[in-house]
């Protein structure tokens, strides 16, 4: 039985696993899907690399050439774009699955941190790839995002010109982004992914509810039971992407023109929540304080002193489920109201013109927002008397929904001049 092929598989999977863990709904196969998408990115990316030329004069033309004169050139680019976008979603859902089944304790705590790092690298892989077509969309998105860096205290302006390799986005930026996109980040990802998988194997596979008693019953061999399921999931995913890529075109606007920004100029969709945030807060708060705080908490998650661990149970408990739901609903109601209020009613900047902008436009809205958040927190604690992990989960859901609301607002409800308007009014 133990031939060479299966031997290799046992480096990745245990020999036997509980039958309950191979049900599709146990993990939704998200980690495996992310891997398939990553491999697809490597293959299509290498193909694109043979045609693409990373200079401002030639980049756009090489894309045009690829799309118009190369057999399946357009199709390969579509696959690369689609699968890159999907990778963000799949990796995010994978992270959420791990979070909501509390699979970040014990032997998995370091793997949670590696996972968050991988997620951040995926975002930056996507972002560095965004510039490469050198069209109006990519040029201005990168201009906007790199300018956000300049609000980091002390090193900000230097950092921006370092990342851009000059005063504005240009040839040096393109070359740097190209190399990060095609060498540095994929290489880092491969190393981290290997580490990630090894850590999963070390922890004895995917998470299982700890109170479930197996007693040898319901234990099944990985080959063929699990491996075949993984293969099927991967193949279905590939089939879906190959089909969708026929119909969904990767965007390509006019050639980049550094003298005219399109109206509105938006960051890539995954950073648009931050762009929306700095419509309401001073950039220092929106770009530095809030994201850094949230990501620090995310890294710190496995180290919170939780007294009771509900490992492997979706949403921790039935109380946890209710709290998550109410948090989501509250965030869904509160934030659209706040956005509209901030757009039309609340103008701390103009009310206190004599104060520093970082105080009037930054600190004041932050205090106002914190009061609302604390009211929410007070409410759920009073009403549910929850455990610490249920609170953490509820707050996580609250901010997750908040970022989603911000992103959707910026993607669909912001027209020319980034003015708030209905999606059907934006032509």
């Amino acid at each position, binding site marked *: 039985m133990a031939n060479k092929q299966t031997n290799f598989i046992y480096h990745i999977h245990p020999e036997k696993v509980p039958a309950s863990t191979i049900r599709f709904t146990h993990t939704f196969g998200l980690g495996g899907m992310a891997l398939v998408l990553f491999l697809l990115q490597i293959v299509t990316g290498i193909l694109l690399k043979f045609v693409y030329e990373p200079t401002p004069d030639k980049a756009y033309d090489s894309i045009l050439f690829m799309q118009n004169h190369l057999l399946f050139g357009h199709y390969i680019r579509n696959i690369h774009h689609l699968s890159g976008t999907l990778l963000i979603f799949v990796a995010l859902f994978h992270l959420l699955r791990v979070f909501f089944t509390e699979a970040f304790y014990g032997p998995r705590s370091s793997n949670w941190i590696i996972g968050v790092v991988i997620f951040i690298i995926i975002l930056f892989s996507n972002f560095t790839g965004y510039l490469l077509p050198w069209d109006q969309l990519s040029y*201005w998105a990168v*201009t*906007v995002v*790199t*300018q*956000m860096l300049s609000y980091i205290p002390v090193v900000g302006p230097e950092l921006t010109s*370092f990342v851009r*390799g*000059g*005063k*504005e986005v240009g040839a*040096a930026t393109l070359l*740097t982004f190209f190399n990060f996109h095609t060498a540095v980040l994929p290489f880092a990802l491969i190393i981290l992914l290997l580490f990630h998988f090894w850590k999963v194997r070390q922890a004895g596979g995917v998470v299982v509810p700890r109170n479930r008693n197996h007693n040898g019953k319901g234990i099944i061999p990985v080959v063929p039971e699990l491996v075949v399921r993984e293969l099927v999931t991967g193949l279905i995913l590939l089939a879906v992407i190959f089909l969708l890529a026929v119909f969904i075109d990767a965007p390509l606007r006019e050639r980049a023109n*550094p*003298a*005219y*920004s*399109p*109206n*509105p*100029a*938006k960051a890539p969709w995954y950073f648009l929540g931050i*762009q929306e945030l*700095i*419509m309401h807060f*001073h*950039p220092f708060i929106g770009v530095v304080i809030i994201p850094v705080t949230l990501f620090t908490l995310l890294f710190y998650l496995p180290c919170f002193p939780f007294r009771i661990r509900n490992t492997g149970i979706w949403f921790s408990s039935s109380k946890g489920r209710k709290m998550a739901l109410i948090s989501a609903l509250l965030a869904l109601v509160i934030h659209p109201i706040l956005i509209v209020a901030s757009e039309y009613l609340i103008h701390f*900047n*103009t009310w206190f013109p004599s104060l520093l*902008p*970082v105080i009037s*436009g930054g600190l004041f809205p932050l205090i106002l927002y914190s009061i609302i958040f604390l009211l929410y927190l007070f409410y759920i604690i009073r009403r549910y008397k929850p455990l610490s992990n249920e609170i953490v989960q509820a707050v996580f859901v609250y901010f997750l929904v908040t970022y989603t609301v911000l992103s959707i607002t910026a993607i669909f409800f912001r027209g*020319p*001049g*980034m*003015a708030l308007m209905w999606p059907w009014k934006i032509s």
Partner: protein
Amino acid sequence: MKEETHKEVNEQAPGVESPGGRRNFIRKFWGWIGLIAGLEMTWVSLTFLNGGKKKKESSETSYTEIARAEDIPENSVFPYRAGRLYLCHLKDGGFLALSLRCTHLGCSIGWDKDQEEFRCPCHASRFSITGTVLNPPATRPLDIYPLKIDNGMIMVDLAHPAPRKSFNPGQETKA
């Protein structure tokens, strides 16, 4: 046998006060060598990341002729997109060369003739003809280019836009 060697190593491993401290010294030595190697590698990487990028930035000032002063009416602006700037002729007769980069996120601003103000398409920041912020989220005035007027010809140093805290009449150049 294997087990024993392992144990032996383990006993030595804390190495807080091993006799002579030679083992300790060697371990630290390798640590420092590794650190230095790491720093060197970082330095080389940064040099390469910066490689060739600073070539074009020279400290020399060279002025480019943009337009004749009498061609720009008072209280109006003249876009010079190739140099990423607007020439502004103020009401009091002074000239300013303002960067067309919004100071908020770097989008290129446009001049609204009716409202007589600059508008940024990205976040709706507005600036007056002197580059002063009229509407946030921008927090500081538009950058300014060095400008001089020679025999009625407006000349601008395109390589050196400079940030400023606020507008003052000293920044204007009169014909």
